[in-house]
C-alpha cells in the first residue's frame, strides 16, 4: 500500500495518467463523430486515424517527424510561457513572422555560404519571433494589458503583415505561394534521407524530414535545463508563481515577465523557420487569411505535456501523428477536420484533468489514511488494556 501511495504521489505519474485520459476521451469523441456521420465506414476511418503516419510506411513516419518539428517549438513556446505564469496564445503570429523572416533571408541573402545561410535564416526567424512577443510582453508588464488579448491582436496583425510582406517581396504568383528558398538555405538532411523514404519503382520517394527535428529536440533539452537547473529559470518560474513574492525577494518582476514572453516568442519564431526551410518538396507559405494552425496546436501540445519540455517532444509527435492520420481519412470521404475536433476535445478535457487528478489522489489518500487510523486505533485500544 505504501508503495502504491508513493507511486501515486509522484506528480509525473498522475499527470501522465490525466493526459492519457484526455487523449482517450478525445479519441472516443472523434469515433462517435465518425459513427454519426457515416456508420458503415466509421471503424475503418477510426483505424486510419490510429494508424496515423504508419499508413504510408517509412516516408509517412518521416512526414510525422517533419510536421512534429514546428509543433515541438510552438509547444515549447506555450509551455515555457505557462511555466512562467503567462498564457501565450500568440504563437500563430510569432510563428508566421518567424517563417516569413526565414524564407526572406533564404530567398534574398544568397551571398551567404552553405551552412551559414540556413543558420542565419533560423536566427532571423528566432529574433523576429521574439520581437513579436516583446510588444505584448511590454504591454503586460508596464501597462497592465492582459497578454491573452494582446497576443490575439498580434496574431491578426502578424497574419495580415506576413501576407502583405510575402506578396510584396517573395511571392511566386504562379503557385500563389512563397518562393523556394535557395539551396544553401535548406536545412541539411543529416542522414535522415537514408531512413525515411519509399521506393517507387527505381526512384526514391523521399520524406521531407531534415535535421530540424534534431534542432527541435536539442532546444527542448536546453529549455528543460534552463527551467530546472539554472537560477535564471528559477527566477522566471518564481515570477509565474507569485509576482509579489518574487518582487519581495528582490527579483525584477517586470523585466522577467518581458524576458519570459520574448523567449516564448523566440521559440515559436524558430518553429516557423524550421518548417519552411525545407527545400523543394517542403512547405511554402500560403497567402490566406487564416491563422497558422501550427501555432494554435502548440497549446494542446503543451497541455498534454503539462508544460514539461521533454514531454513536449512526445506530445508534438503524437499530435502530428494523428493529424497525418486525418489526411489519409480523405480516402474514405471523411473530412479531415475531425482531427481538429478531436484535438479540441483533448484540450477541453485536459483543462480539468487536474480536477480528475486531485480527485483520484484524494480518494486514494483518504482510503489509506482511514486504514492507518483504524490501525492506530487498534494499537491504542490494545495499549489501554
Amino acid at each position: 500500500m505504501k508503495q502504491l501511495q508513493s507511486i501515486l504521489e509522484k506528480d509525473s505519474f498522475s499527470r501522465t495518467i490525466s493526459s492519457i485520459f484526455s487523449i482517450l476521451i478525445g479519441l472516443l469523441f472523434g469515433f462517435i463523430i465518425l459513427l454519426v456521420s457515416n456508420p458503415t465506414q466509421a471503424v475503418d476511418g477510426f483505424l486510419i486515424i490510429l494508424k496515423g503516419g504508419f499508413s504510408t510506411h517509412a516516408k509517412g513516419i518521416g512526414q510525422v517527424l517533419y510536421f512534429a518539428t514546428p509543433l515541438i517549438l510552438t509547444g515549447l513556446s506555450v509551455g515555457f510561457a505557462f511555466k512562467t505564469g503567462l498564457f501565450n496564445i500568440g504563437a500563430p503570429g510569432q510563428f508566421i513572422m518567424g517563417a516569413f523572416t526565414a524564407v526572406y533571408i533564404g530567398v534574398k541573402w544568397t551571398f551567404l555560404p552553405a551552412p551559414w545561410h540556413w543558420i542565419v535564416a533560423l536566427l532571423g526567424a528566432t529574433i523576429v519571433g521574439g520581437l513579436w512577443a516583446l510588444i505584448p510582453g511590454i504591454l503586460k508588464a508596464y501597462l497592465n494589458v492582459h497578454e491573452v488579448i494582446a497576443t490575439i491582436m498580434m496574431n491578426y496583425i502578424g497574419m495580415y503583415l506576413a501576407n502583405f510582406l510575402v506578396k510584396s517581396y517573395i511571392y511566386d504568383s504562379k503557385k500563389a505561394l512563397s518562393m523556394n528558398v535557395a539551396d544553401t538555405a535548406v536545412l541539411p538532411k543529416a542522414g535522415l534521407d537514408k531512413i525515411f523514404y519509399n521506393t517507387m519503382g527505381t526512384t526514391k520517394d523521399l520524406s521531407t524530414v531534415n535535421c530540424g527535428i534534431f534542432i527541435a529536440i536539442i532546444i527542448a533539452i536546453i529549455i528543460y535545463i534552463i527551467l530546472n537547473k539554472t537560477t535564471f529559470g528559477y527566477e522566471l518560474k518564481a515570477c509565474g508563481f507569485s509576482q509579489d513574492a518574487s518582487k519581495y525577494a528582490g527579483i525584477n518582476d517586470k523585466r522577467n515577465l518581458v524576458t519570459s514572453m520574448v523567449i516564448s516568442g523566440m521559440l515559436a519564431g524558430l518553429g516557423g523557420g524550421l518548417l519552411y526551410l525545407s527545400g523543394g518538396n517542403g512547405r511554402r507559405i500560403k497567402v490566406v487569411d487564416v491563422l497558422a494552425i501550427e501555432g494554435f496546436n502548440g497549446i494542446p501540445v503543451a497541455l498534454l505535456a503539462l508544460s514539461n519540455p521533454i514531454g513536449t517532444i512526445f506530445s508534438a509527435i503524437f499530435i502530428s501523428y494523428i493529424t497525418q492520420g486525418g489526411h489519409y481519412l480523405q480516402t474514405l470521404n471523411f473530412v479531415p477536420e475531425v482531427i481538429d475536433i478531436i484535438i479540441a476535445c483533448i484540450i477541453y478535457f485536459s483543462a480539468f484533468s487536474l480536477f480528475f487528478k486531485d480527485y483520484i489522489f484524494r480518494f486514494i489518500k483518504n482510503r489509506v489514511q482511514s486504514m492507518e487510523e483504524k490501525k492506530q486505533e487498534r494499537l491504542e485500544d490494545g495499549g489501554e488494556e
Partner: protein
Amino acid sequence: MGVLSLIVQQTMLFSIPLLVVALGAVFTERGGVTNIALEGMMIMGAFTSIFFINQMQDKMSGQLLLLIAMLIAIVTGTVFSLFHAYASINLKSDQVISGTALNMFAPAFAIYVARMIQDNGVQQIGFTNTFRIKSVPVLGDIPIIGDLFFKNAYITTYIGLGILVLSVIIIYKTRFGLRLRACGEHPHAADSVGINVYKMRYAGVMISGALAGLGGLIFVVPTSTNFNATVSGYGFLALAVMIFGQWKPIRVFFAALFFGLMKTIASAYSVIPLLAASNIPSDVYKMIPFIATLIVLAFSSKSSEAPKAVAVPYDKGSR
C-alpha cells in the same frame, strides 16, 4: 452625403454585432467567469442559423425568416456555452484553456458538418439576403436622420440597440443584476447572504452564449453572402471592446461604435475618395482594427475596473 450615409450605415453593421457580443461578455465577466470562447460561440450560432436560412429560404423570406434564425442562433449559443459553464464553474478548470478548446472546436465542427451534409461537399453555406429594409416606414422619410439611420438598415440594428437598453436595466436596476455583480466582485460575501453563486454564474455564461450566438448571425448576414466557418476575430475584438468599455454597457456601446468605424475604414476604404487615392494595400487596412485595439488597450488598461473575482473559480471551501 452619399459617402457619409454609407459610412454611417456600414459602421452600424459592424458595430451592432460587436455591441451585442461585448454585452454578452459584460454579463459573464460581471458574474466572475471569463469567456474567451465568444468567438467559437459566434461561429456556432452563425452556423446553425445560417444553415437554417439556407434550407428554408425557398419557403419563406424576409423578416420572419430572419427572426426565426435569430432564435435558433440564440439557442445554439446558449447550449454551446453550457460546456464552458460546466468546465469553469463545476469543475473549476482553467477558464482560458476551456475557452481555447471551444474556440478550436467550433470552426472545425462547422466545416466538418457543412461538408458532410451539403450535397456539393463544400464548407461554405450560401444564403440569399432578403433581409435588408430599403427604408423604414415614416422614419425613413425624415431628412438627414432618415438617410443615416433608417435606410438600407437591418432589423438587427434596432434589436441590438434594444438589447443595450435591456442590459443597462438588468445590470443596474434589477435584483438579478445586483446579485450577478456581487458574484463577480466577492462570491463568498454573496454566498453568505444566501445567493447561489453557481446558479448566478451559470446565468452569466448562458446569457453571454446567447448574445454571442446572436452576434454571430447578425455579423454574417449583412456583410456576406455565405458563411465560411469564421467570424474573422470578432469574438476577440468584442472582448477588447468590453475591456475598453470598462465592463459598463453604455461605455461598451461607444467602444463598439469606435471599433465599428475602424472596421468600416478597413473594409470600405475603396469608396472613401481620399483613402482610395492613397494606394495603400488592403492588408494594411485589415490590420487597422487590431492595431487600434492594442493602442486603445495600452491607454485604458492601467486603471482597469475589472470585476475582482473574474476568472477565479468559486470554491465554497476556500477562504
